[in-house]
């Protein structure tokens, strides 16, 4: 009986120790920035695991597509099975060609985006989605070795994706526009009104508050980055289209929902812009070519960007 009690007491001490350690870590992490010891450990962990993630992405991508189809597409009816098998068989023959064409199209679209020539760019591949359920991020296969630093904007063929929030040697993490921690300065066209479009938890749209009730905003209006002084993003990048507009109760303003142009689940290739918030283009000596070619990039931040 005495031994049982001692065992019980010991178990409780162990649990108490673990809880206190966890609370200490949470407090330390909340108070320190990414340069703290926990940030360094995290970057090392990413660096080690990234090659595995990249390899798994290569192998598991078709499996993941199938998995998503089964669980998100609803149940398939029996009579469709035979037809689908036949279609799959035919599509398999075209897969390689389609894949190459799609990749080519994405790169062409990326090159067609309205980005001034003085901004260097790094082409990267998306190798993973968010590892957890309470964040909206993407992991890229390029990192500090290619000159990527935190806060650089990331775009896909259809428009803005988000910004880099974490970098390690061979990879980086991108915070999507739809994450609640994300905010982007936008200008609506044709009204030219500006505001900050904020990500919303559990939603695929951005929230935009407009203080003036007299400005005419309609569904379908385009939102692009405003590029106002100090902005995280360069101007005129496509962000999304207005999906809904509603007057605030009491006539205090207008509540706008912006639907991003980019379907984040489908993004495969992106471009990281060497742009420093508030300072403009980052000077580089070389620019990486689109994927399949790798080259070393050396990056020099302009004056006043020590924080990058």
């Amino acid at each position, binding site marked *: 009986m005495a031994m049982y009690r001692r065992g019980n007491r010991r178990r409780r001490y162990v649990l108490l120790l673990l809880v206190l350690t966890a609370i200490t*870590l949470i407090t330390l*992490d909340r108070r320190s920035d990414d340069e703290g010891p926990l940030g360094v450990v995290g970057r090392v962990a990413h660096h080690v695991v990234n090659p595995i993630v990249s390899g798994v992405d290569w192998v598991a991508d078709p499996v993941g597509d199938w998995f998503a189809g089964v669980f998100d597409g609803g149940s398939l009816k029996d009579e469709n099975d035979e037809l689908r098998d036949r279609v799959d068989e035919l599509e398999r023959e075209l897969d390689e060609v389609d894949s190459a064409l799609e990749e080519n199209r994405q790169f062409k679209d990326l090159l067609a985006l309205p980005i001034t020539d003085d901004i260097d760019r790094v082409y990267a591949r998306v190798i993973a989605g968010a590892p957890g359920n309470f964040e909206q991020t993407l992991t890229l296969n390029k990192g500090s070795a290619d000159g990527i630093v935190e806060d650089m904007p990331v775009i896909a063929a259809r428009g803005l994706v988000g910004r880099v929030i974490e970098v390690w040697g061979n990879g980086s993490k991108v915070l999507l526009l739809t994450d609640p921690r994300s905010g982007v300065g936008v200008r609506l066209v044709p009204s030219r009104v500006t505001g900050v479009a904020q990500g919303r938890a*559990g939603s695929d749209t951005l929230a935009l508050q407009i203080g003036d009730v007299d400005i005419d905003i309609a569904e379908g209006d385009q939102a692009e980055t405003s590029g106002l002084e100090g902005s995280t993003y360069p101007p005129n990048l496509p962000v999304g289209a207005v999906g809904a507009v509603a007057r605030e109760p009491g006539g205090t303003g207008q509540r706008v929902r912006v639907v991003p142009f980019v379907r984040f689940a489908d993004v495969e290739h992106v471009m990281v812009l060497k742009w420093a918030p508030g300072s403009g283009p980052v000077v580089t000596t070389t620019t990486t070519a689109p994927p399949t070619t790798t080259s070393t990039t050396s990056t020099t931040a302009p004056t006043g960007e020590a924080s990058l």
Partner: protein
Amino acid sequence: MNHALRTALAVVVVVIVQVAVFPQLRISGVVPDLGLVLAASIAFSDGPESAAIAGFVAGLGYDLFLETPVGLSALSYALTGYAIGVLQTSLLRAPRWIAPVLGLAAGLLGGAIFVGSSALAGVDEVVTDDAPRIVAIAALYDAALAVVVFPAVRRALRGRPEHAGAWHLR
């Protein structure tokens, strides 16, 4: 290989599989908490103390890859592992369906602790209207995985005296 080393290896494998494989295998946009299932399975075979420690380490490893503060998953996994361990010591017998039931319980409890402690720590992006749906789907996913993970963990940790509660799963 001794028991502690096997457990450590299981934790490392679980963290790598969680961050490398499961982002590709989402159900309704939700990934499971493999670390919680591991903690529950160790609670079942080794009791609350081992489960709390293994859960803490697995959660800490997972935390390194998340944007939420380091320690949140470690806290929820450790508490869940301990609670499941205490719960299973009161079981007189372990029917076949115990693995998915404990997996489901671990998913719900762990998810609730994660969201609750996020609220206390001021991590607003976790405390949303969507959180109950995410926790529920993740828990169901955990329950399904538990059917495979429980016997796998039992086999991986074989070679030591097993907990009395595990005899029905042999």
